[in-house]
């Protein structure tokens, strides 16, 4: 349990320290340092037995998400260090804002790790709300009209969402209280899982609807997704990376915890159809929205919606294969999408524009970056040998074997999105090198010295996962898949 405490406390301390540290270089280094400690602590979890206490729980479900979050938190902090150095150099950010940014970064990591490891519905809700607030602040970091507008939209929509999620949480307690008596027990995951079979299903149903809509807003499910593309597009790119790579997962994790309760209850409505419907809606809508995008970050934000749709669909289908696929897809999407955002952030700095029609030929002008971006998009598009292929393989085959009619919209959606991804990635990565006024490297005002290590580290992991999964991970996935019903 102490390991979890370290994991959660480190970023909290980090936030406090970084709020006081002047100088962006030191701040960035400390940021990396705190993230490293968090990651190391989370790796310790692998050696420990699953455990649960009043405050924290570590089980097969969240252990890999905690490690994943810590890992992406670290790589993003590395990316962020090189990213902000350039932003400082071109004068888009200043020292004061960066101090705030680093503090918020750690605070954000804290809220997410807390949400993942909390054993209490209320604590989790508070953590998710905190995550919303910190990211709202970071999205508006540039203080441009567009970024404030995006932050405002994000804030209002997710504020309402989070309010509905709170109502769902209260309802959940209301449902459990008659069975489990008043007090903390009725708000504790592990206790609830033990007693949920006796809970009356009627309030449970109601609670789930509110939780699905509430946390679903944060997952970015259609038609609740409107905040997501703008928030991704207008904030600093490292934040886009963690939003897509981590925050969406955390919100989905919350939904899935409740789905587990419903599955264990047995009498409640099947949450599957609701999730399938919202998943498909997200997939199809996002797939179509990809076609008309001009802003590269917004484009990949829609791709995140698409993938969240696929994952939600997978959990909606249920069953060992689809659930396994969903869990794998969560991890793969998280790694891949953050890798893509690293590459995109770099490309945007190199070319000086976020408009896709002004970026081209990256594989020629910046081979390492261009091929990295290409590999990322190839991975997210579900092409082998990357991990997303495995999850989509499992999902499509198992769905078609069970519900052929549901597999068709799924496949259509994936293909529609695929078409858009190919269209754009070819344009970004191939052809004559473009950039600011098509000049390429010569007009670059400030040379960009970004690190591509995080990008390739993520890609390497996704590649390995595409052909080989470690045994313990498989075992965890299978345990959770069974629990998810």
């Amino acid at each position, binding site marked *: 349990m102490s390991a979890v405490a370290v994991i959660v406390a480190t970023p909290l301390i980090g936030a406090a320290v970084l709020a006081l540290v002047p100088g962006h270089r030191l701040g960035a280094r400390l940021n990396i340092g705190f993230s490293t400690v968090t990651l190391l602590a989370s790796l310790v979890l692998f050696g420990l037995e699953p455990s649960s206490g009043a405050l924290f729980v570590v089980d097969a479900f969240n252990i890999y998400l905690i490690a994943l979050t810590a890992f992406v938190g670290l790589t993003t902090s590395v990316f962020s260090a090189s990213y902000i150095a350039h932003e400082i150099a071109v004068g888009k950010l200043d020292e004061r804002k960066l101090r705030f940014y680093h503090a918020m970064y750690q605070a954000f990591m804290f809220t997410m790790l807390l949400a993942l490891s909390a054993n209490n519905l*209320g604590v989790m809700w*508070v953590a998710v709300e905190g995550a919303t*607030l910190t990211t709202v602040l970071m999205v508006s970091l540039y203080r441009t009209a567009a970024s*404030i507008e995006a932050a405002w939209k994000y804030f209002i929509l997710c504020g309402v969402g989070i*309010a509905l999620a709170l109502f769902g949480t209260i309802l959940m307690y209301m449902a459990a*209280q008659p069975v489990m008596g008043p007090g903390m027990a009725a708000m504790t995951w592990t206790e609830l899982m033990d007693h949920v079979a006796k809970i009356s299903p009627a309030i449970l149903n109601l609670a789930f609807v509110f939780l699905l809509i509430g946390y679903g807003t944060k997952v970015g499910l259609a038609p609740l997704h409107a905040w997501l593309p703008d928030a991704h597009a207008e904030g600093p790119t490292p934040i886009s990376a963690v939003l897509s790579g981590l925050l969406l997962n955390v919100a989905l994790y919350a939904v899935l915890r409740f789905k587990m309760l419903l599955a264990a209850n047995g009498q409640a409505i099947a949450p599957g159809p609701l999730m399938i419907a919202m998943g498909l809606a997200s997939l199809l809508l996002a797939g179509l929205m990809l076609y008309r*995008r001009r802003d590269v970050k917004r484009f990949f934000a829609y791709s995140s919606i698409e993938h969240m749709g696929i994952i939600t669909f997978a959990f909606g289908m249920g069953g060992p294969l689809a659930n396994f696929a969903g869990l794998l897809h969560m991890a793969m999407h998280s790694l891949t999408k953050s890798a893509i955002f690293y590459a995109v952030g770099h490309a945007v700095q190199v070319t000086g524009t976020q408009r896709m029609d002004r970026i081209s030929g990256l594989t020629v002008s910046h081979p390492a970056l261009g091929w990295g971006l290409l590999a990322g998009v190839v991975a997210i598009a579900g092409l082998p040998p990357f991990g997303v292929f495995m999850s989509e393989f499992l999902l499509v085959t198992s769905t078609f074997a069970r519900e052929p009619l549901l597999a068709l919209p799924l496949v259509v959606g994936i293909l529609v999105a695929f078409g858009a991804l190919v269209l754009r990635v070819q344009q970004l990565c191939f052809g004559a090198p473009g950039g600011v006024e098509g000049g390429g490297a010569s007009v670059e005002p400030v040379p960009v010295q970004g690190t591509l290590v995080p990008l390739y580290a993520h890609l390497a992991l996704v590649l390995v996962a595409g052909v080989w999964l470690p045994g313990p991970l498989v075992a965890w996935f299978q345990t959770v898949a069974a629990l998810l019903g």
Partner: protein
Amino acid sequence: MSDLGYDAAHMLGAVVLLMSFALLYQRRLFSLLNVFTMQALALTATAAWQAYSHGEPHLYITALLTLVLKAILIPVALHRIVVKMKIHRTIEPALGIGLTMVAGVSLVTLSILLVLPVTADATALTRENLALSLSVVLLGLLMMISRRNAVSQVVGFMSIENGLILAAVGVAGMPLVVEMSVAFSVMVAFIIFGIFLFHIRERFDTLDMQKIESFRGESD
């Protein structure tokens, strides 16, 4: 539980719901704020009553918070914003008042329909409480979408929160109510702060949300 406790809680809850309807009905900003203050007062009374009748002292803190923030500070702050920023004093409805009322009634009906099957082992209080708070939440949401004015949207948002607190205080032994309501209040504060902030920066001329969103991402 005594009949009196039940009746009083029921009545106070009903007042909160009534105020929600009243909020929907308002056409002028100042009266809207006044009605909201009254809803907050009713909620304060509910929380205090529940604290007393269930013997849960932490609910007194909730009551106090509600009283200070919702019944005093926020209405005053909003009042000042309206005056200072010369916001139009009438509310532009996106949906006609009549239609809004019809929608509100339907929502309440829906809430009752949803709550009806909750019988098995829930106490009557939970059922009534559930129906009332569900209605208040839904009406708050309706308020947010049927008004164009930013202040009334803030009010709608807070009335959702009132519904949440109504639900939370009504169920016996709910832990973390205070923590969560504090966390929520931070959010509300954020919104109000945001309105101030944007105005000070003069990025938007008005708080009408349609104008705020003139940029809308990719409209170039």
